[in-house]
């Protein structure tokens, strides 16, 4: 009550002043207090949120920690597996390298650079070379011999041709020829050739044709075996026909001495009878035999026919 009375006494003025003052002070301070309140509230809210976030962070950290441990362990397990695998592979590779090394060495030594095969090959090459060399030497000798043969034959034919051309220089009984001088111990070889050569009338053919000289007996050719003759035959490219036989030989077929035919004609007149009867040949034979038995000491003819008889 006292205060109420005080207030009534002093006046409303003071009250109003105080009221105004306090209101204005309150008004002034309202904004500050408001700010302060906001500040405090925001700070408190911040604390709350901060605490919440801290809480969240802590929990998140725990989760992340556990997760990271999990994945790291998984990775580590994987790494261990890989390292183990790599170690195994290295080991295998090393072993494989050892095997391959041995195999390659073996293979190369056996098949590619085979020492013994090379040695054998070189020995075989040497042997083959020897064989070929001896073969070639033989071949060369053979060819040389052939050529020598040919040369000898050519020389000989030349000599015979010369002898043919010089047939007139043959020595006679009266007069020794040029090649048969009395001062020599024996006749010259040309002289011997001249004696052996038969005179043919010269034909138009050149002497390189061997046909003209076929009348030479075998003794003039030196001891040439048949290969010489064969080479002779094969050398000429064109085949040379044998000479046409002379008329005498054609008619009679058998070489006869000049006087034989005349003798026959004289001595066996019956044989020249005309061929009138069909049995004339047998009759002629009969007569010949009778005639022969009569003349026992006749020449060759009789002997020939008796020999034929003996054989029959």
């Amino acid at each position: 009550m006292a205060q109420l009375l005080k207030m009534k006494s002093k006046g409303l003025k003071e009250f109003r002043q105080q009221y105004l003052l306090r209101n204005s002070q309150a008004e002034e301070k309202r904004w500050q207090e408001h700010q302060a309140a906001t500040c405090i509230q925001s700070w408190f809210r911040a604390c709350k949120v901060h605490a919440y976030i801290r809480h969240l962070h802590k929990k998140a950290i725990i989760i992340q920690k556990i997760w990271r441990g999990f994945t790291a362990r998984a990775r580590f397990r994987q790494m261990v597996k890989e390292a183990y695998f790599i170690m195994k592979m290295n080991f295998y590779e090393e072993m494989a390298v050892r095997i391959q090394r041995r195999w390659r060495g073996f293979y190369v030594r056996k098949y590619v650079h085979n020492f013994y095969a090379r040695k054998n090959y070189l020995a075989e090459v040497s042997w083959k070379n020897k064989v070929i060399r001896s073969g070639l030497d033989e071949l060369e000798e053979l060819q040389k011999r052939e050529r020598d043969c040919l040369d000898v034959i050519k020389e000989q034919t030349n000599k015979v041709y010369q002898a043919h051309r010089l047939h007139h220089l043959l020595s006679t009984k009266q007069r020794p020829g040029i090649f048969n001088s009395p001062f020599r111990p024996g006749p010259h070889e040309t002289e011997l050739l001249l004696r052996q050569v038969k005179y043919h009338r010269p034909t138009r053919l050149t002497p390189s044709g061997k046909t003209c000289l076929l009348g030479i007996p075998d003794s003039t050719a030196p001891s040439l075996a048949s290969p010489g003759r064969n080479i002779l035959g094969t050398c000429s490219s064109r085949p040379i026909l044998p000479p046409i036989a002379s008329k005498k030989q054609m008619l009679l077929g058998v070489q006869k001495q000049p006087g034989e035919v005349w003798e026959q004609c004289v001595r066996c007149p019956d044989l020249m009878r005309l061929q009138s009867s069909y049995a004339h040949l047998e009759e002629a034979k009969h007569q010949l035999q009778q005639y022969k038995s009569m003349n026992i000491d006749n020449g060759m003819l009789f002997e020939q026919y008796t020999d034929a008889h003996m054989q029959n």
Partner: protein
Amino acid sequence: MSQRQIIQVFQEYQKSRLHFVQTVADLASRPQNIEILHNAGAMAMLRALLLDVVPSIQQAAAVALGRLANYSAEMAEAVVKEDILPLLVHSLGLQNRLYKKAAAFVLRAVAKHSTGLSSAVVSCGGLDAMVICLEEFDPLVKEAAATTLGFIARHSATLTQSVVDAGAIPLLVMCLREPEMALKRTAAATISDICKHTPELTQMVVECGTITHLVQMINSPDTKLKRQVFSALSQISKHTVTMAEMVIEAEVLPAAVACLKHPDDHVRMNVASLMKEIVKHTPELSQVIVNSGGLAAVIDYLAECRGDLRLPGILMLGYVAAHSEKLAMAVVLSKGLPQLTLCLSQEHDHHIKASTAWAISQIGGHTTQHANAVAKAGLLPKLLQLYMNTGSSEDLQIKAKTALNSILQRCTDLPSLQPLLFDAPSNILKHVVCQFSKVLPHDSLARRIFVTSGGLAKVQEIKAKSDSALQKYIRVINDCFPEEVVRYYSPGYSEILLEKVEDYEPEISKLK
């Protein structure tokens, strides 16, 4: 005038023409008359007579022209300038065989001189004319035509291409089968000339089955035919591996090896070139030839011939040895090295010596064994001499140097290396000393021999720049020997000792 008299006038004219042409032909067969005939204008007259009505005059005129053209290139040029070739060619298909022979003779005489003349022959249609001649029956005509084609083909590849385009090859192959020797010879020579240019032409020749025919003709006794056959086969086989294989499959080798003993030089040379061309391609082909004893035959062939004939044999040995070390060893075992030594000493031509040096480098360049074999055959001093000789051609020097380099890097035969120490120039000396430095550290007997034979003294005398490879090798060698020995053999050591004797003062007190 009566009909008979008029005809007689013509007959007389014909007789005189014939007489003129025949006389000119006879005169042209002697070389001294040809200039005179040309100056007298024979060319123009003969050209006119080529178009004569009477065939025998045409033939005689053609023969005379052929003989004129045969004499020299200028005459042939004159023939071409007078436009005679088209005249010959255009009526060839209708004429008889004597005219064809004479015309072929003229074309051959013109074509043989030079490339320009041959292309002139080709451009005026000479090839078709020759092909027509080849289809004739008469062997002499065919021979003349084949010779002409051979001369044309000899000059260049384009001309040969045109010959082949004219379809000459099947006809030539048929000519090969004819019985006449001369025709076979000319056909083989023409085929050889065609094949020598390019692989495509050879392919076309081979497709006609030429190889079998050529191989069948190897056994004939005629020498010149054998020459041409082998030359044709070698030209065929030189281009590709397939063709060389085809030639080998046709079983050429036994006959070829036997023909290496033929008395005629050119046959042997052509066989050797055939083997060389085959061997060039692959190691397998070389092995086929080595297995059939070809090496022995070729080495004996080298022993018997002289001069340029040796070249294919030497090249063959070089190619065989180049393929592999087994084949090189086979060459060495077949006594190839003594023969090559003889070749080096007997031949004077530089290109032959160069090819011998090349062959030796191929043989010795494979392994130590080969290089030692080469060194033992005494080839190193010879090669060194060839290299040092200022009279040798550049090619020879280069080849000798390569040979020395390749052999010296592998040679361990010290006795034969020692002479090289004394004579060689520095670039060769380097290799020699290198070899010594490789071998001496391991072999004590070799060291002893090295010292006693004066090698160590020589090595000490070599002045080499320090830090060069030569100095390194010298140091290695010096390290193989004890120091006193090295000092003993160093140059001027006797001087040093004598100086020591002069400087030495004996202590007189001790002597008393």
